[in-house]
């Protein structure tokens, strides 16, 4: 047998053992997911004891196939996307053993939802300008400030938080990275209504919120380094999702074209097929990137996937409304709601068009991502940075 075959045989054995002791038909979902984690079958690329087996990431697909075929529950990655895509890899890379053991299991099973306290009203694209202050008080940090664009904050148990711990040094050097307890009395979450009419995001106000020093991730003052790891994972997560052909925005348009012949106009055909090709090429590029990164860490290339994803969803959703004609003039409902998950698929075309406008802003604007590719991949000169050597507190704002 080749190594590949040996690994797959071993995985098959482990999955069978799990299914024998935990019959999916009769086992509670959470009990099953915990057992799956403990068997190392949650994310096989994580270390043993932390839900994985230290194998290449690609093998997880095989495990998922076997489990899905047996009717096993999944952990709904949409509901816990920030935890899985951003918090988990960051905790794995920078967390202490104790932090890894405490946080990764309930994160993976979905028992504990995570959110991300990064952006602020005055620090969006210039994330290193964050002004939320964390001041040390013995073994605790006292945090004050305001965060914004926080999805899932109203559902979250924990947050990853970037805060300023030293205002007297240049901005990148004075930040630290924390795990923030969202149930702390100093944390207040308020809905933030958007152009879609709903409040999928939140504002989060931190007033004397207290974070134990044991919940710091990485060294004091090294928050920027830790945050960068999170952001690269975020861009890969946002940009490179679609595993199957037409499982993305293009699926809606293709479906409308197929099932509603009255919408078909010859002049729309080339644009339709052009977008279809681009969507499929984007999917293949994501697949290629994942193959490339299978062994290593995400690099700046992930920014390219996110750029493509944002442009395409905007083009496709705009085309979809136009294709729908009269129907595209309508909108389902402007009533303010607070959805549990961001769900492009459960809503109408008008919602998709409006929501897609956020894709080129959240997780790094397209303009910042272009800078990153130009500077870190193509090695072109960096943007002039007027605040580079100035203490954060002295930067004009």
């Amino acid at each position, binding site marked *: 047998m080749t190594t590949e075959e040996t690994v797959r045989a071993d995985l098959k054995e482990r999955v069978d053992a799990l299914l024998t002791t935990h019959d999916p038909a009769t086992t509670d979902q959470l009990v099953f997911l915990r057992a799956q984690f403990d068997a190392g079958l949650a994310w096989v690329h994580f270390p043993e004891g932390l839900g994985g087996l230290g194998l290449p990431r690609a093998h997880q697909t095989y495990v998922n196939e076997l489990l899905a075929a047996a009717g096993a529950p999944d952990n709904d990655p949409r509901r816990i996307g920030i935890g899985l895509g951003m918090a988990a890899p960051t905790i794995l890379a920078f967390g202490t053993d104790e932090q890894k053991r405490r946080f990764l299991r309930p994160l993976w099973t979905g028992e504990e939802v995570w959110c991300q306290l990064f952006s602020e009203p005055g620090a969006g694209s210039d994330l290193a300008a964050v002004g939320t202050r964390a001041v040390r008080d013995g073994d605790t940090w006292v945090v004050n400030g305001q965060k914004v664009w926080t999805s899932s904050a109203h559902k979250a148990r924990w947050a990853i938080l970037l805060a300023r711990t030293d205002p007297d040094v240049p901005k990148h050097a004075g930040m630290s990275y924390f795990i923030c307890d969202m149930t702390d009395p100093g944390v207040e979450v308020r809905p933030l209504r958007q152009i879609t009419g709903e409040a999928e995001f939140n504002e989060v106000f931190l007033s004397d919120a207290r974070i134990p020093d044991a919940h710091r991730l990485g060294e004091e003052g090294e928050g920027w380094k830790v945050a960068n790891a999170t952001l690269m994972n975020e861009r890969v997560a946002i940009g490179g999702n679609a*595993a*199957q*052909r037409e499982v993305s925005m293009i699926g809606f348009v*293709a479906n409308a*074209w*197929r099932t509603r*012949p*009255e*919408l*078909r*106009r*010859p002049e729309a*055909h*080339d644009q*339709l*097929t*052009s977008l*279809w*090709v*681009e969507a*499929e*090429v*984007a999917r*293949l*590029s994501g*697949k*290629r990137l994942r*193959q*490339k990164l299978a062994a290593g860490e995400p690099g700046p*290339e992930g920014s*390219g996937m996110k*750029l*493509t994803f944002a442009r395409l969803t905007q083009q496709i959703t705009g085309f979809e409304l136009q294709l729908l*004609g009269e129907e595209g003039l309508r909108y389902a409902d402007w009533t303010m709601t607070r959805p549990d998950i961001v769900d492009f698929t459960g809503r109408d075309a008008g919602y998709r068009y409006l929501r897609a406008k956020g894709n080129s802003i959240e997780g790094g604007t397209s*303009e910042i*991502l*272009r*800078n990153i*590719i*130009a*500077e870190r*991949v*193509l*090695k*072109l*000169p*960096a*943007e002039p940075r007027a605040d580079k050597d100035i203490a954060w507190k002295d930067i004009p704002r």
Partner: protein
Amino acid sequence: MNDDVNLLYTDVETALRESVSDLLTARCSPEKVIAVFDGDREIQPKLWRSLALDLGLAGLLVPEERGGAGASAREAAVVLEELGRFAAPVPFLTSSVIASAALLHAGDDRLLATVASGERTAAVVVPFSTAPNDLRPTVRADGQGALNGRVTSVAGALEADVLLVPVAAQDGVELHAVEAGAASVTPVVSMDMTRQLADVDLDAAPGTRVVEAGGDTAVRGALELGAALIASEQLGVAQWCLDTTVSYLRERTQFGRSVGGFQAIKHRLADLYVTTESARAAARYAAATAADEDSDRHVAALMAKSYCSEAAVRAAEECVQLHGGIGMTWEHPAHLYLKRAKADQIALGNPQAARRQLGELVDLPMPPAGSTA
């Protein structure tokens, strides 16, 4: 659809790329290629002999038991990337990919072996713009089997020792082999002189029938493989344009700064990088599915032709623009790539034609003309 397909480069492919690249670096300088446009064709036969014989590329796609190197479309794609990167004036695509694929299907092993060994060069006689599903032979056989007709803008015909001519017969398309000397092959001034076209006139030319009725399947299959793999050549063109433009703009100074530091320029180059990497995914997928004879290879070929055609033209146009005045000069090689990119876009079915056919394959059909919503 094959979801396990490997879109990366294997070690074998990387080694092959390096040997092709080394040879082209030594033997195919931009100056020599530019000279081809001034009618200096001296570089071509020698360069092709080196590639075909020394590196054994002539029969790359032909199985070993039939006289070739037994490699797959994946390796041919890597060779084409390098040929694109150097705008190399050699008939690899026309002889070793398209004509060889037609002969492989035809089963004429004697002729195939001479092409595979590099002893002879072959070309399929169709206009280079022909889309795989749009084969319309203009040559006919008379009662004695002699061929008559005219085919214009044929790629690879000038270099060919043997012409593979699709012939319209009563019960379909036949494929005939004609000695180049028996036909009148007239060079035409071409947009891309690194792949110069020719008009082929057959006046009672003697030919050997290598495929009877059903030759259309052989030719269409060969043209489809050509479309799938020209995408890799287009990727090579785009890659050269990106690399060259980036390194030029890092060094070029204006207003006391490196031009590559201006955000308006950086953003265009970042977009071009993303386009080039996307083209790589499309080209690799087309090559891999062709190599595996995967059922998705038809979709993959059309997708790659559509995407990579546009990507290469965009890269070449950006290259000329961002080089400023220098990009417009005869001395700078940028124009070689613009000409190759534009010709490749039109070749083997233009992007619109590819997308139209793709729509049929993936159940997104074009509505009948005149229909309105």
